[in-house]
């Protein structure tokens, strides 16, 4: 593993086993997942402009290779936690697209029963720990997941994602210190899309690259090209191996780019259309598509058929969300407290 800063020491004992080669079907599955996220987000964008989705809606277009690539090297029982731009991570983790879209629509069939919304997707069965709305606030939680994984001797690891804006929050630095100090099996992943909302990285973050922040904690650090899913996978695999075999944390910076605004309500005045068009030329899905064809894994026709399939899947999610019922008013009082099973439970009527 390459350290981004000369002060960053890597473990001498670490023998990283090589990332296994993918079978053709596995490569196609990765492509399919990235494309599903893109088509899902296009549907979400449409639904937002139709006012079927309210509140804030942060789209993942352009960043698909990050969520799909990183999560593809995990085991099913490893933990994933992320910030509010969470649709891609949820779908990459295998959360049902219908439940995701229904959550955006605020329906009872949503992955958080319509109580979380776009920023707060959760799925316990998929080891997906959210979906968190406060910048950087999820990073101490992710650190706690890794703490528990180690405490319970599970040999599992945690991926904790944040945007480049989050790196300037104190919560992130406190967490990295704890993880390095206590050797927690966690990978902190900065998805650097160059903008914290409308502020460029140059105007928000001193020190380049961001992986230098790991140096202060003697934590391993690594960068990846978020437009190339194979690079994302290879680098993440190294970090995951370090966490799993030696219980050591890593800070990853994955360079990426988002095509749409910070959220749907962002007019995007802080960057030029040319910039976006230019960046779309290194689109992660197009790059991977060309590679699969070049490697003769499949044909352009097959991939187009696949596109039709995932487009239909996104439409089906939209239809499912639209036809799902609204939550009953009584559900507003549900899910507040876990039932007690070890003590006397006293729950007076909700105060009004």
């Amino acid at each position, binding site marked *: 593993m390459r350290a981004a800063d000369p002060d960053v020491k890597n473990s001498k004992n670490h023998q990283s086993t090589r990332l296994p080669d993918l079978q053709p079907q596995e490569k196609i599955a990765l492509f399919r997942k990235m494309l599903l996220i893109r088509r899902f987000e296009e549907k979400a964008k449409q639904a937002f402009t139709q006012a079927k989705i309210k509140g804030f809606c942060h789209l993942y277009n352009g960043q698909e290779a990050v969520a799909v690539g990183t999560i593809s090297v995990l085991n099913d029982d490893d933990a994933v936690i992320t910030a509010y731009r969470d649709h891609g991570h949820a779908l990459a983790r295998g959360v049902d697209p219908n439940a995701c879209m229904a959550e955006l629509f605020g329906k009872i069939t949503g992955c958080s029963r319509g109580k979380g919304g776009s920023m707060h997707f959760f799925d316990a069965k998929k080891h997906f720990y959210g979906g968190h709305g406060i910048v950087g606030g999820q990073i101490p939680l992710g650190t706690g997941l890794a703490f528990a994984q180690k405490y319970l001797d599970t040999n599992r690891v945690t991926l904790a994602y944040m945007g480049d804006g989050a790196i300037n929050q104190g*919560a992130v630095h406190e*967490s990295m210190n704890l993880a390095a100090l206590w050797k927690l099996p966690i990978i902190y992943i900065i998805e650097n899309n160059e903008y914290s909302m409308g502020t460029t990285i140059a105007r928000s973050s001193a020190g380049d690259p961001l992986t230098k922040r790991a140096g202060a904690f003697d934590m391993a650090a690594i960068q990846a090209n978020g437009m190339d899913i194979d690079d994302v996978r290879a680098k993440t695999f190294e970090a995951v191996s370090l966490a799993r075999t030696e219980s050591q944390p890593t800070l990853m910076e994955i360079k990426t780019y988002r095509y749409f605004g910070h959220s749907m309500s962002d007019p995007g005045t802080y960057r030029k259309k040319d910039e976006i068009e230019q960046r779309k030329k290194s689109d992660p899905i197009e790059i991977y598509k060309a590679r699969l064809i070049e490697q003769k894994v499949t044909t352009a026709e097959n991939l187009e058929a696949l596109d039709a399939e995932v487009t239909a899947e996104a439409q089906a999610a939209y239809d499912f969300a639209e036809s799902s019922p609204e939550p009953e008013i009584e559900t507003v009082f549900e899910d507040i407290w876990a039932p007690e099973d070890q003590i006397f439970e006293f729950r007076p009527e909700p105060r009004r």
Partner: protein
Amino acid sequence: MPTITYREALNQALSEEMERDDKVFLMGEEVAEYNGAYKVSQGLLEKFGPKRVIDSPISETGFTGLAIGAAMYGLRPVIEYMTWSFSLVAYDQIVNNAAQVRYMSGGQFSIPLVMRGSSGGGLQVGATHSHTPENWYANVPALTVITPAFPDDAKGLLKSAIRSNNPVCFLENEKLYGYKDEVPEGEYLTPIGKARVVKSGGDFTIVSNSGSTHRALNAVKTLEAQGIHAELIDLRTIKPLDFDTIAESVSRTNRLLIVEENKPFAGWGAQVAYEVQKELFDDLDAPVYRVTSLDVPQPYNGRLEQAVLPNEERILAAVKDLLA
């Protein structure tokens, strides 16, 4: 029944619950090798080892969030704030994560977490170290807020809090750590959400909590010498509020005085006063009175601080008005 301090009672609760359940661990600043800033965790490191009694760096946000994440994963963390005044550094984690994650996830993730530590004024440690934040946290849905006044309740309520499947703010009182009383040995649980009638009486009702219960108790003794008999209710749990016990008493005595260390604006007593006037309007022979801390930051000077706290003099003055 052995007589022990409030501090020792808390220590017993921690020790017994850690013995009982491997998933319980204690984390905080100076809890392990230093044996706790207030010695509540005395001897626990020796007994349970560094895996379960963990000295944290001074990172309230970090270790609070870590504990919430660990609770989401199924552990039962107990974290110590050296004082609840320092919990403000972790306010986002407590309010946005500990209290909201279960609801936001549609009930998928529970947070069996105890956040505990000292609180309250009266020790001349100035404005930043003297907060009494039970009302701030009681304002947040899904948080249970507990403030024991006596050693037996300190033990019984902490044991219940650790066994709760929900996030609990457990506010001890710095001035009470050395207070001694009888505490049952071994298994002893005080129910969360049940007030305690400390003293029965028919002339009027006092509702108080934590250190204010002791101030009220002193006033009650003074009044008894004058032939006035107050009923003193110690809330023990601020939220959920045991309104039934308050209502039963006030419907008999027809007069209510609230004594609390919160600042007056939106202290927990304001909520109790609202509910009493709404539910028991016809039973009241006088307005509901409150004696609270004064609406000023906590001064360092001892004379000034005593004036700010809900002292016996102000309690007795309020009783005079209440019974007039």
